[in-house]
């Protein structure tokens, strides 16, 4: 990388520092905390003595004459043939940690390498970089991508001639392993497997990938190969643990970066209170907008991260209204998120790198290692949900020897408020643990099935670190999928199991968004299955680069949404009802006045309708219906309910109890997410009776409403038995192991929620504690916040006995 000229550096330091100073002077009361991370100098080591001369030349041609210390460490581990994981900040030269040992292996004829990236786009970036090094040193290394876009006639060449094959887990799963005999030659010579962006392999996806690695190593063992695994990750608390769980073998770590870094400033920003009665603060959106405007006016390049696709579009629109009002000039503001077509995204990336864009608004899509060049300012619209993700996003601003500024703008959610009010928690806390559960039964079954297709299982054969899977094999044999003969289990069904298993757990496939007004009915976006019901219902306003489209027809079976450009001055937000039924209790604890349990539940999500919300004023200007099938799933959950009699003693009416439970659930959900180090979207919450007969939602008035199976409102007082419970469930089919630890630490969850609600500044309840309160206390006649405290105190009374297997 060419050094930046000193004159420009000074000027920019001034500009960034100037912006920071202006913000601090003008908005002192909104800035809760500031942090300055000093600049760090480079630490380097000599190039390894054993490095091939051709590689030495390639590096020299790209201006590299020494390695950063972490790159040196990685080299040593590779030479010692020890699996390792590299965890260093963005732009620290992470990829050389694996490229160097791999190129050495390829150029010396030792063996080949397989690179896996979570997405196709990252894989293509990576090949481009490899090819550059290749050209610089005239190495003659053949690196190919192998993905869904690789044409049929090129695939054979990739298999037989590729030295480095760059692919993604989905291709390995669906196209490579089920045809491994075609790859025999490649596998026999495989010396390295590289998994970059390892931190994305968590939760369901990570559990799938761990099993995929079990399958890969099983097939590799068949070909007598035992390659070295190299992982790279953004900062998380447990990189070694995650890598070890993914691989099922011991992994060493490289964690100290030797790369230089410019000074970084971070401001924690809380929007001002505008209605003290309701505890309402100005929106994070308005503050983010203001900061991004100041940065852009000041000639700085900035990136804004929003938490939802919708917010990306709204923010982009507001910023475009200011900076891109003149259609004759090239746009200065761009949106970037999943759902845009790959070509659109490549174009935005390219314009970012070339400096053509001054401000980009993105979802987490740009959190990953897509190369977008250096930026000066990063604004986070709302706490990204985890400390790891926060640092990852902030790392997008900042170059080697320049100052950068990050601003975390708190939203009204409890986590956000907790973070800005307790900055020491954020600044001192280690990032979260990435958790996976490779032994999750459904995931495991899926991969045992795929593995049995790839090679017959021998009796008692271990599946990675899981051990023998005899029971699952027997289950598959009972289903007629496998046939046991002698001491082996053979595949006998006429099917291709990998096609039925999606690594992202949503098997159903993407929805295409089709603009009917354009010639040939052009596809303008893709939406994954799980978010389709909430964004593509008929009547929904769907936005692409801040341009609104209205969904006119949704072809659910054909997975298509037909839209037309519109001039609506509002956007839409779906209303979702969740109904839940307990299937089995795994464990139960009796508390003094309540009881809590952990078990399996059946969930039904109903998409009841949508709200129309006007731009800028954000007032609710109407409702519409959604006609979509209910979405069902099985998952694991933890739940709390009161012991008989307690409810009647504590509450004047069932309506009050309902409001109390809803408020308590809201606080518990957020505290549980924080404590289990997951994102709030990984957990779901519901209030209902556990038999699926009724469930509670918050109505337009802000009051709790009781609804029956068909979603109709019913009066709480007219029900027979009334036993509300708070449910927190894993938001993934089959669960991913979040609710069990919550059950074991249930007292902490309740206590934490109680602290949150008790400690809040508001009077009747607010989004920072028990959720938004729309009707004022006078109209309602009681305080939802007080009711939530009543519920939480009842739940908080200690355990008197545990009932392990009810």
């Amino acid at each position, binding site marked *: 990388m060419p050094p930046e000229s000193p004159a420009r550096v000074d000027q920019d330091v001034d500009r960034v520092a100037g912006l920071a100073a202006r913000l601090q002077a003008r908005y002192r009361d909104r800035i809760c905390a500031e942090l300055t991370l000093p600049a760090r100098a480079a630490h380097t080591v000599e190039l390894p003595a054993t490095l091939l001369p051709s590689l030495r030349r390639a590096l020299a041609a790209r201006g590299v004459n020494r390695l950063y210390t972490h790159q040196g460490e990685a080299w040593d581990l590779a030479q010692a043939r020890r699996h390792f994981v590299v965890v260093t900040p963005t732009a620290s030269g992470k990829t050389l940690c694996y490229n160097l040992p791999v190129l050495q292996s390829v150029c010396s004829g030792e063996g080949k390498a397989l690179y896996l990236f979570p997405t196709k786009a990252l894989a293509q970036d990576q090949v481009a970089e490899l090819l550059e090094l290749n050209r610089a040193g005239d190495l003659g290394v053949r690196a190919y991508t192998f993905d869904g876009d690789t044409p049929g006639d090129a695939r054979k060449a990739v298999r037989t001639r590729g030295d480095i094959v760059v692919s993604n887990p989905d291709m390995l799963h669906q196209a490579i392993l*089920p045809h491994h005999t075609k790859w025999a030659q490649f596998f026999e010579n495989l010396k390295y497997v590289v998994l970059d962006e390892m931190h994305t392999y968590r939760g369901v996806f990570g559990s799938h990938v761990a099993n995929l690695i079990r399958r890969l190593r099983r097939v590799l063992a068949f070909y007598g190969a035992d390659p070295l695994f190299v992982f790279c990750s953004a900062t998380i608390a447990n990189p070694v643990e995650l890598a070890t769980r993914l691989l099922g073998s011991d992994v060493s770590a490289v964690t100290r970066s030797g790369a230089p870094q410019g000074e970084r400033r971070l401001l924690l920003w809380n929007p001002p209170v505008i209605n003290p009665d309701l505890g309402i603060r100005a929106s994070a959106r308005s503050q983010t907008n203001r900061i991004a405007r100041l940065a852009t006016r000041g000639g700085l390049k900035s990136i804004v991260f929003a938490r939802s696709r919708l917010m990306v579009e709204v923010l982009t629109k507001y910023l475009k209204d200011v900076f891109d009002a003149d259609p004759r000039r090239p746009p200065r503001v761009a949106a970037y998120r999943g759902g845009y077509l790959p070509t659109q995204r490549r174009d935005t990336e390219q314009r970012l790198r070339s400096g053509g864009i001054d401000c980009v608004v993105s979802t987490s899509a740009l959190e990953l290692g897509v190369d977008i060049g250096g930026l000066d300012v990063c604004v986070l619209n709302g706490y990204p949900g985890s400390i790891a993700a926060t640092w990852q996003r902030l790392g997008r601003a900042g170059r080697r020897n320049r100052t950068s500024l990050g601003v975390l703008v708190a939203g009204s959610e409890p986590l956000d408020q907790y973070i800005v009010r307790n900055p020491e928690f954020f600044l001192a806390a280690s990032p979260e643990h990435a958790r996976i559960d490779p032994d999750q039964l459904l995931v495991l079954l899926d991969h045992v099935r795929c593995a049995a*297709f790839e090679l017959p299982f021998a009796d008692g054969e271990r599946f990675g670190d899981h051990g023998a899977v005899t029971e699952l094999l*027997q289950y598959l044999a*009972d289903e007629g999928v496998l*046939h046991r003969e002698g001491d082996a289990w053979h595949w006998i069904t*006429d099917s291709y199991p990998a096609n039925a298993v999606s690594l992202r757990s949503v098997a159903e496939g993407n929805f295409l968004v089709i603009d009917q007004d354009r010639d040939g009915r052009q596809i303008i976006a893709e939406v994954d299955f799980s978010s389709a019901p909430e964004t593509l219902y008929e009547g929904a306003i769907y936005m692409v680069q801040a341009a609104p489209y209205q969904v006119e027809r949704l072809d659910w079976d054909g997975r298509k949404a037909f839209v037309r450009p519109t001039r609506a001055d509002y956007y839409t937000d779906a209303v979702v009802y969740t109904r839940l039924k307990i299937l089995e209790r795994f464990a139960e604890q009796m508390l003094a006045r309540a009881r809590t349990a952990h078990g399996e539940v059946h969930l039904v999500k109903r998409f009841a309708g949508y709200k129309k919300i006007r731009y800028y004023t954000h007032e609710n200007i109407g409702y519409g219906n959604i006609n979509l099938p209910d979405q069902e799933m099985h998952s694991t959950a933890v739940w709390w309910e009161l012991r008989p009699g307690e409810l009647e003693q504590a509450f004047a009416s069932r309506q009050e109890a309902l409001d109390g439970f809803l408020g308590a659930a809201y606080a518990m959900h957020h505290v549980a997410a924080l404590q289990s180090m997951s994102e709030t979207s990984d957990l779901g919450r519901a209030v209902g009776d556990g038999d699926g007969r009724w469930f509670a939602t918050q109505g337009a008035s802000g009051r709790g409403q009781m609804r029956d199976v068909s979603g109709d409102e019913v009066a709480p007082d007219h029900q027979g038995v009334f036993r509300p419970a708070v449910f927190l469930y894993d938001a993934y089919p*089959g669960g991913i192991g979040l609710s069990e630890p919550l059950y074991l630490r249930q007292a902490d969850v309740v206590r934490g929620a109680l602290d949150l609600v008790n400690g809040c500044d508001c009077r009747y309840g607010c989004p920072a504690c028990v959720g938004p309160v729309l009707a004022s206390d006078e109209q309602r006649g009681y305080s939802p916040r007080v009711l939530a405290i009543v519920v939480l105190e009842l739940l908080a009374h200690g355990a008197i006995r545990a009932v392990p297997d009810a």
Partner: protein
Amino acid sequence: MTIADRLDRLRGRTPAGTGTGQSATLDDRLRRARGRQGAQVARLSPTPDALAASLGGQVVDGVVQVSRRWLPPAREPFGDDGLDGLPEVLGCGDADWVYLDTETTGLSGGVGTAVFMVGVARRDRLGGLQVRQFVLAGFTAEDAMLRQLVQWIGPHAVVVSYNGRCFDGPLLQARMRLHRVLPDLGGLRQLDLMYTVRRAFRAHWPDCRLQTAERRLLGYVRRDDLPGSEAPAAWHDWLRRGDACMLADVARHNLDDVVTLARLHQRLPGIYAGRHADAVDEGAIGRAWWQAGFDGRALAVWEGGLPRLDERAGLQLAAIYRRAGDWPRAESLWLRLARAGSRSAACELSKYYEHRVRDPRRALRFADGCADSDRTVRLARLRRKLLGGPQLSLWSPTSVANAMK
């Protein structure tokens, strides 16, 4: 709760309403019990000997081998001559032709699809067909079967199949890799008759499946045939229940396929040489000869099908005439193609009239058929040559028709 019960519930195999802690429904328990029962029975009875007895074969190293001899009907005796009369294999002479067809556990492909029956056949010196079927009574003998197959086929064969290039071949290769059978069939030459048939008949038949070909070309209609798609279920039945009834049908189906392959191979060279009574696509056949470098054969086929030739073949044939200096034939062919709407033929005519006949007036009539870039220059030049001649409007089928009157 057992793992099986948990799985059933997680996967929605039991109604959600069965309540908490309750075990699987009776139906489920029965289903599972039956499954286990079936597996036990299967382990007892599906032996190679039993299968050999049902199919009339013998057991060699655990593999059931069935040998048969088939004689062609008197009106179409087998001969060795001309079997290489196809564009793919011309010049192979009297190669060691081996006809091959497999029956598999599935049609979806991938390593997990196994081959449980392979029929192979070779002509003998007495004008008959020696057929050998290798059949698995279970997976244990798969390795032995694959090795016996490679040995039977030998190192010098040309393997004749129907869709073997995409299906049978890759499947056998995958399983051979799995059992590390070396040498495998990878080095052998292949003749996939499906391409041969498709090329000649795609334009005239609703489909080009093997059975369509044998009905239309050989007049053979199978009776009580078990469709190939049911082969997986047949082997399933055998493994689970030791029931070889359906498997015998599969063997008959497989024998039919192999015999048909040999008969088609006997028949197709004649069709490719232009001797046929059926509607065939002479254009495509001639083109295949042409692309394989046999111009003489292409010419014969195209001339035989002259009245029916498509534009592409017509232009190629005209080009052969032109190169041979046979201008009258070339001209009449171009004229016919141009009348049928071929712009390329019109352009050829234009060039021919301008440079060869030196008649710019007629050349001009056809010049509009030429590609845009070419046309402007050509038109200008021709108008110059004609100077004062009539200005023709753009070329159109009517103007061609008028020009030719």
